[in-house]
């Protein structure tokens, strides 16, 4: 038994050497943090004696962190915000990027279409910090373009960074602005892959453009739409930290509509110092996220075996 293991080890020595650096990385950056989730059940204290010492010697509190987390309003509001924003992103993102892909595929001048696409792709390459500055140039109270425009039309200035009402719209808009150009590429690629003879036949039968879209393009896109959507559903418990932290400029008055699980966890670490409760929130996110990924992968597998993640 041991002998055969060593023989097999020996035969795979070089390959094992090749995965070694990566495996060590995964061990440190993925698997040891899993051990670290024990902190969710502790009253965690940083100790100068290091990782293991802090972990072992922090006081055990059982489920208290979770109990406390779910007894506060925070648990409810961060879960609600994360879910509602993601649902809006998934639905609107899908509608707009599919529409845009169809629209781009219909343009007569392919050079222009390429040019538009290059423009739309740009926001995807910028960091959230930069996008935050962009947003500020529009939304600044005394200098922003939007308030100038409002004044020009005789309306009052708005205190954008102090008004929670408008932020759900702003965040959704910024998200769509940044991501649509990118996601429409996926749909455009599959539209261009559709057999042209289908459209030819439809035109001979006298189908209008709209009928062609409804009866050929959309049905042919259905599998990829379903896959993309289910993959997004699997990640519905995760929020893009940058969008919710940089764009509202970490403004305290807006927390009621901008705080999501990820920003809550971060603030628990850096601002409020509630390590245990914050880890509990992170673990809650991981567990629910894991269940959702498994469920949506199961569904993907049912719909289209080849597109499943695993």
């Amino acid at each position, binding site marked *: 038994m041991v002998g055969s293991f060593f023989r*097999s080890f020996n035969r795979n020595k*070089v*390959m*094992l050497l*090749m*995965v070694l*650096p*990566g*495996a060590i990385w*995964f061990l*440190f*950056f*993925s698997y*040891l*943090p*899993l051990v*670290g989730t024990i902190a969710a059940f502790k009253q965690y204290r940083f100790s100068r004696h*290091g*990782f293991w010492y802090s972990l072992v010697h922090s006081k055990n509190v059982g489920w208290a962190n979770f109990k406390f987390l779910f007894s506060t309003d925070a648990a409810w509001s961060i879960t609600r915000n994360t879910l509602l924003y993601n649902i809006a992103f998934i639905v609107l993102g899908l509608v707009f990027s599919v529409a*845009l892909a169809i*629209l781009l595929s*219909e*343009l007569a001048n392919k050079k*222009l279409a390429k*040019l*538009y*696409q290059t*423009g*739309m792709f*740009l926001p995807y*390459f*910028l960091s959230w*910090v*930069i996008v935050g*500055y*962009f947003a500020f*140039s*529009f939304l600044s109270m005394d*200098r*922003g373009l939007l*308030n100038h425009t409002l004044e020009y039309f005789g309306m009052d200035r708005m205190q954008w960074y102090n008004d929670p009402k408008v932020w759900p719209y702003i965040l959704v808009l910024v998200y769509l602005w940044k991501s649509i150009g990118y996601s429409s590429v996926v749909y455009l690629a599959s539209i261009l892959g559709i057999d*042209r003879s289908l*459209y*030819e036949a439809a035109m001979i039968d006298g189908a209008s*453009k709209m009928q062609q879209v409804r009866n050929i393009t959309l049905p042919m896109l259905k599998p990829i739409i379903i896959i993309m959507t289910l993959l997004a559903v699997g990640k519905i418990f995760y929020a893009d*930290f*940058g969008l919710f932290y940089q764009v509202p*400029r*970490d403004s305290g008055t807006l927390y009621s509509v901008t705080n999501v699980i*990820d920003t809550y966890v971060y603030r628990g*670490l850096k601002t409020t110092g509630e390590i245990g409760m*914050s880890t509990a929130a*992170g673990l809650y*996110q*991981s567990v629910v996220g*894991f269940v959702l*990924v*498994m469920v949506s992968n199961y569904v993907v597998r049912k719909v289209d075996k080849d*597109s499943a993640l*695993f």
Partner: protein
Amino acid sequence: MKKKRNFHQASPGWNIVFNLIAGIFAFLCVFPFVFVVIISFTEEKTLATDGYRIIPKAWSLDAYQYIFKTGDTLLRSYGVTILVTVIGTVVSLLLISLYAYAVSRRSFAYRRFFSLFAIFTMLFSGGMIPTYIVVTQLLGLKDSIWALILPLALNAFYIMILRTFYITGIPDAIIESGKIDGAGEFRIFSTIVLPLSLPGLATIGLFSTLGYWNDWFNALLYIDDPNKVPLQAMLMRIESSMQFIQQNSANGSISLEVLQSMPQDTARMAMVVLATVPIIFAYPFFQRYFVQGLTVGGVKE
């Protein structure tokens, strides 16, 4: 030859409407950047009275002069970002290509185990705080450049993309012929596999270059030393310290000196421009590979 008819084509009327919609959206995507460029070339005094304008009353190069005269912070951050991006991309390509190659080889007995070892990390993670604790307490990387490099070095998704690339792009026969000629695994990898998989490596390399250049999150978590703050994080810091000063300037605890040493509005926008310019120039090139990467990512074993 008869011109092939294009059946993906709207009628002339709709074509105009579609062009308008696509054109306007494309414009809106580019406009904020152009606007920030304009602000950076606006004269500071005009800005104070007029605010940000698309066509300012007075133009000025002051912001850029200011940066190049007093811009140690900016230059240092530029340096940190370039260093982190270069080292990071190299390290991450090395780790990813080795790992992906091994798990792509049918002759590797433990390939299923190591594939799962990677994939599992996509499904379940400890989260931000346990990772923070490991990086700072176990690895002792607080305030180290490596805290900006290592956390982004590897991810399972890139490994899967490259593995698919190796499996579909490099026939077993070539590797076998290398073996017959007496080459070892590492030699085969470096002289046959790597050159053949250049498009795949370029895709992953660009993904990670972009990831490193745009990263601010790891700096937010791990870097307090002002000498090691990368570009994006520096822009973020200037912003929050400005806010801090504005909020606290009423109580007089902030000296006038500090206030004057802060970069002015136009200078900050000029910094944004300088941080973005490399991306703007590189991105048509990026775009091609990203589209390719999206397609490669969609292909399954």
